[in-house]
């Protein structure tokens, strides 16, 4: 089955043409999840009744000659930290599972539904988005469709796995330190983490207000382009939303002529297995990119991101840390507690550096349009694996997965992650990085790479497809 036949744009075209009904598409998605997700555990809630009702509404609109929107009948799913009307926003936790149901959909969910998307369910994640592997103590580990003994990445692991498994063609996640890019890379799918503030976070349970963004996963670049077009834009009700005019739709056929591309050097050219570094080099060779560029203070940026993450995250959950710490996932509890004990000076210095680093990175893009960098230092680890050896050194698997993503999100830059190769059957991805608010440039470059066959979603072993 080709991607074009199963991606969101392809499905919407078929529904609009009457080749298939939205209800039939929803039923297929629900059947695929029922048949296959026991092995993957990407969904924590399947919304069958809502999905079929929404699909029937789409079919009715089409039958009456109306236009249900560019996502007509497209099944999508969201990380379970997005509010969905009538559902409890559990955010991967036991504690928030006791909250009352949400009254309305999160803004991002509302926008996709309004465009004809059919919400199929809610997706597994690390507790409160604090992790890179989605090995959730309460809801179980989300497993990688390419090898279910391995993790899907995190914290939006369900969002990556559900697309890779072919359950749905569009998912939403959140990215604070790499939580969209890591699972996208490990699951071999495309993802777009936009500029900080570009997509409304209203109705998304926060993790770290200074860094959180909404991101999308899909099997094709055109799906990312359509979803970005629907999702981005100022939201006065979201205090971190960027007050900026909307982009025109990306020109996916424009190619890369005239764009200045470079490979991230230094920090980004070491610290991963050879295949992860070579994946970037091979992509650069194929494009004729010879320029190399150093991203200054990348290690310090990662360090500062970790300080801000721990302290802001702990502050957000301080009441629960005081009253019921035993109900946290042990994987997150100890880090939140450490964050709660951090001296204010550490946090304030990290914030001061944050502003300076963000400006430094913006200036860097005066001489380059897109930077290529590895997405992860290695492919998906085995579930439960706590250590890995890289360049002869033992590293902690879980935090180290973010070594290449954290410095970039710390600067608030947009990143499009593309699947480029596999190693021993496991996907590896590359980050395409641009300056703030240059998402359409990233979409243009990714589309050119996809058209040349340099970026594509590998076929996962999914017998229910």
């Amino acid at each position: 089955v080709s991607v074009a036949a199963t991606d969101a744009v392809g499905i919407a075209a078929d529904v609009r043409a009457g080749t298939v009904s939205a209800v039939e598409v929803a039923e297929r998605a629900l059947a695929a999840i029922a048949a296959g997700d026991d092995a993957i555990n990407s969904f924590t809630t399947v919304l069958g009744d809502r999905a079929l009702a929404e699909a029937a509404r789409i079919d009715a609109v089409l039958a009456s000659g109306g236009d249900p929107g560019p996502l007509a009948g497209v099944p999508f799913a969201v990380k379970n930290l997005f509010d969905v009307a009538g559902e409890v926003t559990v955010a991967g936790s036991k504690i928030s599972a006791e909250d009352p149901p949400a009254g309305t959909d999160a803004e991002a969910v509302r926008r996709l539904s309004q465009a004809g998307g059919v919400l199929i369910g809610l997706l597994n994640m690390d507790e409160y988005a604090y992790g890179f592997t989605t090995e959730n103590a309460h809801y179980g580990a989300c497993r990688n469709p390419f090898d279910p003994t391995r993790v899907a990445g995190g914290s939006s692991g369900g969002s990556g796995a559900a697309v890779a498994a072919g359950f749905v063609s569009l998912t939403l996640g959140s990215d604070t330190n790499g939580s969209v890019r890591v699972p996208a890379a490990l699951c071999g799918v495309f993802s777009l983490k936009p500029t900080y503030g570009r997509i409304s976070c209203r109705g998304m349970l926060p993790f770290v207000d200074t860094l959180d963004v909404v991101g999308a996963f899909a099997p094709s670049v055109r799906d990312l382009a359509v979803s970005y077009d629907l999702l981005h834009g100022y939201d006065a009700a979201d205090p971190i939303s960027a007050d900026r005019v909307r982009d025109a739709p990306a020109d996916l056929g424009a190619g890369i002529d005239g764009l200045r591309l470079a490979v991230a050097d230094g920090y980004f050219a070491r610290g991963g297995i050879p295949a992860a570094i070579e994946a970037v080099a091979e992509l650069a060779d194929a494009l004729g990119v010879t320029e190399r560029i150093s991203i200054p203070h990348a290690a310090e940026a990662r360090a500062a991101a970790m300080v801000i993450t721990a302290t802001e995250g702990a502050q957000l959950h301080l009441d629960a840390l005081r009253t019921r710490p035993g109900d946290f996932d042990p994987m997150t509890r100890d880090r939140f507690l450490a964050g709660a004990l951090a001296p204010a000076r550490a946090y304030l210095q990290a914030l001061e550096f944050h502003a300076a680093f963000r400006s430094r990175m913006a200036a860097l893009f005066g001489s380059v349009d897109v930077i290529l960098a590895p997405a992860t230092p290695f492919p998906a680890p085995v579930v439960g694996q706590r250590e890995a050896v890289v360049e002869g050194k033992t590293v902690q698997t879980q935090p180290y997965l973010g070594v290449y993503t954290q410095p970039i999100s710390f600067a608030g830059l947009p990143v499009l992650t593309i699947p480029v190769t596999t190693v021993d059957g496991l996907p590896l991805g590359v980050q395409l990085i641009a300056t703030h608010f240059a998402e359409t440039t990233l979409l243009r470059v990714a589309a050119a790479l996809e058209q040349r066959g340099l970026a594509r979603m590998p076929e996962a072993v999914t017998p229910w497809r």
Partner: protein
Amino acid sequence: VDQLDTYARAAARLAGLEIDDAWWPGVERHLTVLLDNAALVEAVDLPSLRAATARATALGAEDRADSSGAQNGADSLGTQAGGPS
């Protein structure tokens, strides 16, 4: 380690956190990592970083003015202005 333990237990008391004895090794391990990261950030020379940004911004403006037909690899600014990473 003793100093860290003394600090951490005092901070926990002040924050109203009751930390189970079994959790302390993990909490202090993560706190050590956090403080190591904070030290790395503190070592950054912010005035130099801001000066590098100003230089790069000026050069970038010149580059943009000169590069209406720029191709890949037209400039190597990032390596000129890079700091430790």
